[in-house]
Protein backbone atom coordinates (compact mmCIF):
# COMPACT_ATOMS: atom_id res chain seq x y z
CA UNK A 1 0.00 0.00 0.00
CA UNK A 2 1.54 3.37 -0.99
CA UNK A 3 2.38 5.74 1.82
CA UNK A 4 -0.19 8.46 2.44
CA UNK A 5 0.93 11.79 0.99
CA UNK A 6 -1.15 13.78 3.42
CA UNK A 7 0.33 14.72 6.79
CA UNK A 8 -1.69 15.45 9.89
CA UNK A 9 -0.83 18.39 12.11
CA UNK A 10 -2.49 20.39 14.84
CA UNK A 11 -2.76 24.09 15.58
CA UNK A 12 -1.73 24.71 19.17
CA UNK A 13 -4.48 27.35 19.14
CA UNK A 14 -6.73 24.34 19.74
CA UNK A 15 -5.27 24.27 23.27
CA UNK A 16 -6.19 27.89 24.04
CA UNK A 17 -7.94 26.92 27.26
CA UNK A 18 -5.18 24.90 29.01
CA UNK A 19 -2.60 27.39 27.77
CA UNK A 20 -4.52 30.41 29.07
CA UNK A 21 -5.05 28.68 32.42
CA UNK A 22 -1.30 28.01 32.57
CA UNK A 23 -1.95 24.29 32.86
CA UNK A 24 0.44 23.58 29.98
CA UNK A 25 3.25 25.50 28.30
CA UNK A 26 4.25 25.31 24.64
CA UNK A 27 6.79 22.44 24.95
CA UNK A 28 4.17 20.43 26.86
CA UNK A 29 1.58 21.15 24.18
CA UNK A 30 3.99 19.93 21.51
CA UNK A 31 4.43 16.67 23.43
CA UNK A 32 0.66 16.35 23.92
CA UNK A 33 0.09 16.87 20.19
CA UNK A 34 2.38 13.93 19.46
CA UNK A 35 0.47 11.75 21.92
CA UNK A 36 -2.79 12.63 20.15
CA UNK A 37 -1.51 11.26 16.84
CA UNK A 38 -0.20 14.32 15.01
CA UNK A 39 3.23 14.65 13.39
CA UNK A 40 3.49 18.44 13.18
CA UNK A 41 2.10 21.65 14.63
CA UNK A 42 1.51 25.31 14.02
CA UNK A 43 1.20 28.02 16.64
CA UNK A 44 -0.10 31.54 16.80
CA UNK A 45 3.01 33.46 17.74
CA UNK A 46 1.25 36.44 19.32
CA UNK A 47 -0.71 34.09 21.56
CA UNK A 48 1.96 31.67 22.74
CA UNK A 49 5.29 33.36 22.12
CA UNK A 50 6.18 35.34 25.21
CA UNK A 51 7.87 38.57 24.30
CA UNK A 52 6.26 38.67 20.86
CA UNK A 53 7.02 40.39 18.51
CA UNK A 54 10.59 40.04 19.84
CA UNK A 55 10.75 36.67 21.63
CA UNK A 56 13.92 35.58 23.37
CA UNK A 57 16.35 33.06 21.91
CA UNK A 58 15.79 31.00 25.05
CA UNK A 59 12.09 30.58 24.22
CA UNK A 60 12.74 29.87 20.55
CA UNK A 61 15.38 27.28 21.45
CA UNK A 62 12.97 25.62 23.90
CA UNK A 63 10.24 25.07 21.33
CA UNK A 64 12.75 23.90 18.71
CA UNK A 65 14.23 21.45 21.19
CA UNK A 66 10.75 20.19 22.20
CA UNK A 67 9.91 19.70 18.52
CA UNK A 68 13.04 17.62 17.89
CA UNK A 69 12.62 15.60 21.10
CA UNK A 70 9.05 14.69 20.14
CA UNK A 71 9.80 14.22 16.42
CA UNK A 72 7.25 16.90 15.59
CA UNK A 73 7.48 18.94 12.38
CA UNK A 74 7.41 22.69 12.91
CA UNK A 75 4.83 23.30 10.22
CA UNK A 76 4.04 26.99 10.46
CA UNK A 77 4.64 30.11 12.50
CA UNK A 78 1.25 31.78 12.39
CA UNK A 79 1.80 35.51 12.47
CA UNK A 80 -0.78 38.13 13.18
CA UNK A 81 -1.01 41.02 10.84
CA UNK A 82 -2.43 43.41 13.39
CA UNK A 83 -3.30 45.96 10.79
CA UNK A 84 -5.25 48.03 13.31
CA UNK A 85 -2.82 47.79 16.22
CA UNK A 86 -2.38 51.55 16.50
CA UNK A 87 -5.03 53.64 18.16
CA UNK A 88 -5.03 56.44 15.64
CA UNK A 89 -4.64 54.79 12.24
CA UNK A 90 -4.02 51.56 10.39
CA UNK A 91 -0.45 50.49 9.76
CA UNK A 92 1.30 51.93 6.73
CA UNK A 93 2.63 49.73 3.94
CA UNK A 94 6.16 50.25 5.28
CA UNK A 95 5.12 49.14 8.78
CA UNK A 96 3.31 46.05 7.45
CA UNK A 97 6.42 45.07 5.51
CA UNK A 98 8.56 45.46 8.60
CA UNK A 99 6.20 43.42 10.80
CA UNK A 100 6.10 40.70 8.16
CA UNK A 101 9.89 40.63 7.86
CA UNK A 102 10.15 40.49 11.64
CA UNK A 103 7.83 37.48 11.83
CA UNK A 104 9.76 35.71 9.08
CA UNK A 105 13.06 36.28 10.88
CA UNK A 106 11.77 34.93 14.20
CA UNK A 107 10.00 32.03 12.49
CA UNK A 108 13.31 31.01 10.94
CA UNK A 109 15.20 31.46 14.20
CA UNK A 110 12.72 29.11 15.88
CA UNK A 111 13.13 26.50 13.14
CA UNK A 112 10.01 27.10 11.03
CA UNK A 113 10.11 27.26 7.25
CA UNK A 114 6.61 28.61 6.80
CA UNK A 115 4.85 31.71 8.06
CA UNK A 116 1.17 32.53 7.74
CA UNK A 117 -0.21 36.01 7.27
CA UNK A 118 -3.59 37.53 6.38
CA UNK A 119 -5.19 38.87 3.25
CA UNK A 120 -4.88 42.45 4.51
CA UNK A 121 -1.17 42.29 3.66
CA UNK A 122 -2.18 43.59 0.18
CA UNK A 123 -1.13 42.07 -3.15
CA UNK A 124 1.68 44.61 -3.55
CA UNK A 125 3.40 43.81 -0.24
CA UNK A 126 2.77 40.08 -0.59
CA UNK A 127 4.55 40.05 -3.94
CA UNK A 128 7.34 42.20 -2.60
CA UNK A 129 8.06 39.65 0.16
CA UNK A 130 9.02 36.81 -2.20
CA UNK A 131 12.77 37.58 -2.48
CA UNK A 132 13.07 37.92 1.31
CA UNK A 133 11.22 34.62 1.80
CA UNK A 134 13.65 32.91 -0.55
CA UNK A 135 16.63 34.47 1.19
CA UNK A 136 15.35 33.32 4.59
CA UNK A 137 14.09 29.94 3.32
CA UNK A 138 10.64 30.63 4.78
CA UNK A 139 7.50 30.26 2.66
CA UNK A 140 4.75 32.83 3.18
CA UNK A 141 1.07 31.95 2.88
CA UNK A 142 -2.17 33.87 3.29
CA UNK A 143 -5.05 32.22 5.08
CA UNK A 144 -8.28 32.06 3.12
CA UNK A 145 -10.80 32.26 5.92
CA UNK A 146 -14.53 32.85 6.03
CA UNK A 147 -16.08 35.18 4.77
CA UNK A 148 -13.61 34.94 1.90
CA UNK A 149 -13.83 32.32 -0.83
CA UNK A 150 -11.89 31.56 -4.01
CA UNK A 151 -13.98 33.73 -6.32
CA UNK A 152 -13.42 36.93 -4.32
CA UNK A 153 -11.73 39.30 -6.80
CA UNK A 154 -8.80 40.06 -4.47
CA UNK A 155 -8.00 36.35 -4.27
CA UNK A 156 -7.78 36.05 -8.02
CA UNK A 157 -5.00 38.64 -7.84
CA UNK A 158 -3.30 36.75 -4.99
CA UNK A 159 -3.43 33.46 -6.89
CA UNK A 160 -1.75 35.06 -9.91
CA UNK A 161 1.02 36.34 -7.65
CA UNK A 162 1.47 32.87 -6.10
CA UNK A 163 1.69 31.32 -9.55
CA UNK A 164 4.74 33.46 -10.36
CA UNK A 165 6.52 33.07 -7.02
CA UNK A 166 8.30 29.73 -7.52
CA UNK A 167 6.42 28.34 -4.55
CA UNK A 168 7.55 30.90 -1.99
CA UNK A 169 4.11 32.49 -1.78
CA UNK A 170 0.98 30.45 -1.25
CA UNK A 171 -2.40 30.02 0.39
CA UNK A 172 -3.71 28.27 3.47
CA UNK A 173 -7.34 27.36 2.78
CA UNK A 174 -9.33 27.18 6.00
CA UNK A 175 -12.11 24.63 5.75
CA UNK A 176 -14.45 27.05 7.56
CA UNK A 177 -15.14 28.56 4.14
CA UNK A 178 -17.21 25.43 3.41
CA UNK A 179 -19.21 25.47 6.65
CA UNK A 180 -22.88 24.89 5.83
CA UNK A 181 -24.56 24.39 9.18
CA UNK A 182 -24.25 25.70 12.77
CA UNK A 183 -22.26 23.46 15.07
CA UNK A 184 -23.63 21.86 18.21
CA UNK A 185 -22.02 24.32 20.62
CA UNK A 186 -23.66 27.23 18.79
CA UNK A 187 -26.97 25.41 18.88
CA UNK A 188 -26.51 24.92 22.63
CA UNK A 189 -25.89 28.67 23.02
CA UNK A 190 -29.12 29.45 21.17
CA UNK A 191 -31.02 27.15 23.52
CA UNK A 192 -29.38 28.78 26.54
CA UNK A 193 -30.42 32.18 25.20
CA UNK A 194 -34.07 31.12 25.06
CA UNK A 195 -34.55 29.71 21.57
CA UNK A 196 -37.56 27.39 21.76
CA UNK A 197 -36.15 23.83 21.40
CA UNK A 198 -38.96 22.56 19.16
CA UNK A 199 -38.76 25.54 16.86
CA UNK A 200 -34.98 25.27 16.72
CA UNK A 201 -35.25 21.67 15.52
CA UNK A 202 -37.74 22.75 12.84
CA UNK A 203 -35.42 25.54 11.72
CA UNK A 204 -32.35 23.30 11.56
CA UNK A 205 -34.32 20.82 9.46
CA UNK A 206 -35.41 23.64 7.15
CA UNK A 207 -31.74 24.54 6.71
CA UNK A 208 -30.97 20.94 5.82
CA UNK A 209 -33.90 21.06 3.36
CA UNK A 210 -32.44 24.20 1.76
CA UNK A 211 -35.48 26.38 2.51
CA UNK A 212 -35.39 30.10 1.80
CA UNK A 213 -34.35 32.36 4.68
CA UNK A 214 -37.67 34.22 4.51
CA UNK A 215 -39.51 30.94 5.06
CA UNK A 216 -37.27 30.02 7.99
CA UNK A 217 -37.81 33.43 9.60
CA UNK A 218 -41.57 32.89 9.56
CA UNK A 219 -41.10 30.15 12.18
CA UNK A 220 -39.53 32.63 14.63
CA UNK A 221 -41.67 34.39 17.20
CA UNK A 222 -39.15 36.52 19.10
CA UNK A 223 -36.03 38.62 18.58
CA UNK A 224 -33.69 35.97 19.98
CA UNK A 225 -34.88 33.43 17.43
CA UNK A 226 -34.81 35.90 14.55
CA UNK A 227 -31.29 37.05 15.46
CA UNK A 228 -29.97 33.49 15.54
CA UNK A 229 -31.59 32.65 12.20
CA UNK A 230 -30.08 35.79 10.68
CA UNK A 231 -26.66 34.79 12.06
CA UNK A 232 -26.97 31.19 10.91
CA UNK A 233 -28.04 32.23 7.43
CA UNK A 234 -25.29 34.81 7.13
CA UNK A 235 -22.48 32.58 8.35
CA UNK A 236 -23.35 28.94 7.74
CA UNK A 237 -25.95 28.69 5.06
CA UNK A 238 -25.37 28.13 1.37
CA UNK A 239 -21.65 28.96 1.55
CA UNK A 240 -20.23 30.88 -1.39
CA UNK A 241 -17.24 28.55 -1.51
CA UNK A 242 -17.82 25.25 -3.30
CA UNK A 243 -15.74 22.26 -2.25
CA UNK A 244 -14.74 21.61 -5.86
CA UNK A 245 -13.01 24.99 -5.96
CA UNK A 246 -10.52 23.71 -3.40
CA UNK A 247 -8.85 21.81 -6.26
CA UNK A 248 -7.68 25.10 -7.79
CA UNK A 249 -6.25 26.24 -4.47
CA UNK A 250 -4.33 23.07 -3.62
CA UNK A 251 -1.72 23.80 -6.27
CA UNK A 252 -0.71 26.86 -4.24
CA UNK A 253 -1.48 25.51 -0.78
CA UNK A 254 1.35 25.45 1.73
CA UNK A 255 -0.95 23.87 4.30
CA UNK A 256 -4.67 23.47 4.98
CA UNK A 257 -6.44 24.53 8.15
CA UNK A 258 -8.79 21.72 9.14
CA UNK A 259 -11.26 23.83 11.10
CA UNK A 260 -13.79 22.17 13.38
CA UNK A 261 -15.88 23.07 16.40
CA UNK A 262 -17.42 19.96 17.88
CA UNK A 263 -17.48 16.28 17.01
CA UNK A 264 -19.89 14.00 18.82
CA UNK A 265 -19.36 10.30 19.55
CA UNK A 266 -20.13 9.38 15.94
CA UNK A 267 -17.01 11.32 14.84
CA UNK A 268 -18.94 12.96 12.03
CA UNK A 269 -18.87 16.68 11.28
CA UNK A 270 -22.36 17.88 10.27
CA UNK A 271 -21.09 21.43 9.68
CA UNK A 272 -18.03 21.19 7.45
CA UNK A 273 -18.28 18.64 4.62
CA UNK A 274 -15.12 16.63 5.27
CA UNK A 275 -16.71 13.67 3.46
CA UNK A 276 -16.32 15.76 0.26
CA UNK A 277 -13.15 17.63 1.20
CA UNK A 278 -10.89 14.69 2.10
CA UNK A 279 -11.45 12.62 -1.08
CA UNK A 280 -10.82 15.76 -3.15
CA UNK A 281 -7.53 16.38 -1.34
CA UNK A 282 -6.53 12.81 -2.11
CA UNK A 283 -7.64 12.98 -5.73
CA UNK A 284 -5.61 16.16 -6.26
CA UNK A 285 -2.46 14.54 -4.86
CA UNK A 286 -1.88 17.27 -2.30
CA UNK A 287 1.21 16.36 -0.26
CA UNK A 288 1.34 18.88 2.57
CA UNK A 289 -0.15 19.17 6.02
CA UNK A 290 -3.76 19.45 7.01
CA UNK A 291 -3.75 21.06 10.43
CA UNK A 292 -6.62 20.35 12.82
CA UNK A 293 -7.82 23.59 14.34
CA UNK A 294 -10.31 23.11 17.15
CA UNK A 295 -12.27 26.29 17.85
CA UNK A 296 -15.07 24.98 20.03
CA UNK A 297 -13.59 26.94 22.91
CA UNK A 298 -15.05 30.09 21.33
CA UNK A 299 -18.46 28.86 22.49
CA UNK A 300 -17.79 26.51 25.38
CA UNK A 301 -14.83 25.79 27.62
CA UNK A 302 -16.42 22.62 28.99
CA UNK A 303 -15.33 20.39 26.13
CA UNK A 304 -12.19 18.28 26.22
CA UNK A 305 -9.96 19.53 23.40
CA UNK A 306 -7.86 16.35 23.57
CA UNK A 307 -10.88 14.16 22.84
CA UNK A 308 -12.07 16.54 20.13
CA UNK A 309 -8.66 16.56 18.42
CA UNK A 310 -8.39 12.77 18.56
CA UNK A 311 -11.80 12.49 16.93
CA UNK A 312 -10.90 14.99 14.22
CA UNK A 313 -7.65 13.22 13.42
CA UNK A 314 -9.50 9.90 13.14
CA UNK A 315 -12.23 11.50 11.01
CA UNK A 316 -9.73 12.91 8.52
CA UNK A 317 -7.73 9.68 8.28
CA UNK A 318 -10.90 7.62 7.77
CA UNK A 319 -12.18 9.88 4.99
CA UNK A 320 -8.81 10.16 3.23
CA UNK A 321 -8.54 6.42 2.66
Amino acid at each position, binding site marked *: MPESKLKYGVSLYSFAKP*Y*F*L*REMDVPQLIARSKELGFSGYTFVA*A*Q*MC*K*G*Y*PYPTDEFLDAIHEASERNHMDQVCWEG*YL*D*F*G*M*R*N*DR*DLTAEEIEEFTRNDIIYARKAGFHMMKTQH*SISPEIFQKMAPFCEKMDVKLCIEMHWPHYPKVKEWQTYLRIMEKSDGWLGVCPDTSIFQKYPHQLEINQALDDGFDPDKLQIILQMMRDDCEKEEILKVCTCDVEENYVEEYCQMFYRPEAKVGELADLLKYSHMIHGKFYYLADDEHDPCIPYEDIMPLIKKCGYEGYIVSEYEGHHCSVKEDENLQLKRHCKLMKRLYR
Partner: protein
Amino acid sequence: MEAAVDDLMIPEENIRFGVNNKWFTRKEMLEANKEYWFTGEKALIRILSDKPLEKGAHKVYLKMVHKIPYTGYFGNYLHITSDYTRTLTLN
Protein backbone atom coordinates in the same frame (compact mmCIF):
# COMPACT_ATOMS: atom_id res chain seq x y z
CA MET B 1 -9.16 54.27 30.49
CA GLU B 2 -10.75 55.74 33.63
CA ALA B 3 -10.14 55.10 37.33
CA ALA B 4 -11.78 56.20 40.54
CA VAL B 5 -10.99 55.52 44.19
CA ASP B 6 -13.74 56.01 46.75
CA ASP B 7 -15.88 57.64 44.03
CA LEU B 8 -13.22 60.24 43.28
CA MET B 9 -12.24 60.23 39.61
CA ILE B 10 -8.47 60.16 39.09
CA PRO B 11 -7.13 62.75 36.63
CA GLU B 12 -5.81 61.04 33.50
CA GLU B 13 -2.31 62.42 34.04
CA ASN B 14 -2.09 60.54 37.38
CA ILE B 15 -2.82 57.09 35.92
CA ARG B 16 -0.08 54.71 34.74
CA PHE B 17 -0.64 51.41 32.96
CA GLY B 18 1.92 48.68 33.67
CA VAL B 19 2.80 45.75 31.43
CA ASN B 20 6.12 44.08 30.55
CA ASN B 21 7.79 45.70 33.58
CA LYS B 22 7.21 49.14 32.09
CA TRP B 23 4.87 51.97 32.99
CA PHE B 24 2.96 54.01 30.44
CA THR B 25 0.99 57.24 30.58
CA ARG B 26 -2.12 57.33 28.44
CA LYS B 27 -0.25 59.43 25.89
CA GLU B 28 2.59 56.91 25.79
CA MET B 29 0.13 54.02 25.42
CA LEU B 30 -1.06 55.50 22.15
CA GLU B 31 2.45 55.00 20.76
CA ALA B 32 3.22 51.69 22.47
CA ASN B 33 1.87 49.45 19.75
CA LYS B 34 4.93 47.19 19.83
CA GLU B 35 4.28 46.32 23.48
CA TYR B 36 2.14 43.20 23.66
CA TRP B 37 0.00 42.64 26.73
CA PHE B 38 0.64 38.93 26.75
CA THR B 39 -2.12 36.31 26.88
CA GLY B 40 -3.33 35.72 30.41
CA GLU B 41 -0.95 38.18 32.09
CA LYS B 42 -2.21 40.77 34.53
CA ALA B 43 -1.63 44.46 33.90
CA LEU B 44 -1.11 46.79 36.85
CA ILE B 45 -2.62 50.23 37.33
CA ARG B 46 -0.59 52.76 39.28
CA ILE B 47 -2.23 55.89 40.59
CA LEU B 48 -0.10 58.86 41.59
CA SER B 49 -1.36 60.81 44.56
CA ASP B 50 -0.13 63.26 47.18
CA LYS B 51 -2.47 61.66 49.70
CA PRO B 52 -1.63 58.03 50.51
CA LEU B 53 -4.66 55.85 51.13
CA GLU B 54 -5.53 55.08 54.70
CA LYS B 55 -5.69 51.49 55.87
CA GLY B 56 -9.04 49.82 55.41
CA ALA B 57 -11.58 49.22 52.65
CA HIS B 58 -11.62 51.34 49.50
CA LYS B 59 -13.93 51.30 46.54
CA VAL B 60 -11.92 51.03 43.32
CA TYR B 61 -13.45 51.61 39.88
CA LEU B 62 -11.79 50.93 36.52
CA LYS B 63 -13.03 51.34 32.99
CA MET B 64 -11.19 50.30 29.87
CA VAL B 65 -11.93 50.46 26.16
CA HIS B 66 -10.16 47.56 24.51
CA LYS B 67 -9.59 47.66 20.75
CA ILE B 68 -9.14 44.24 19.18
CA PRO B 69 -7.26 44.66 15.91
CA TYR B 70 -7.63 41.01 14.92
CA THR B 71 -11.39 41.38 14.60
CA GLY B 72 -11.47 43.70 11.64
CA TYR B 73 -9.70 45.43 8.83
CA PHE B 74 -9.36 48.83 7.26
CA GLY B 75 -10.50 51.08 10.07
CA ASN B 76 -13.35 48.89 11.28
CA TYR B 77 -12.49 47.07 14.53
CA LEU B 78 -14.28 45.66 17.51
CA HIS B 79 -14.06 47.83 20.63
CA ILE B 80 -15.06 46.32 23.96
CA THR B 81 -15.83 48.62 26.86
CA SER B 82 -15.60 47.03 30.27
CA ASP B 83 -15.82 48.48 33.75
CA TYR B 84 -15.52 47.02 37.16
CA THR B 85 -15.95 48.17 40.74
CA ARG B 86 -14.47 46.25 43.62
CA THR B 87 -13.84 46.92 47.27
CA LEU B 88 -10.17 46.38 48.09
CA THR B 89 -8.69 46.40 51.56
CA LEU B 90 -5.37 48.07 52.31
CA ASN B 91 -3.68 46.39 55.25
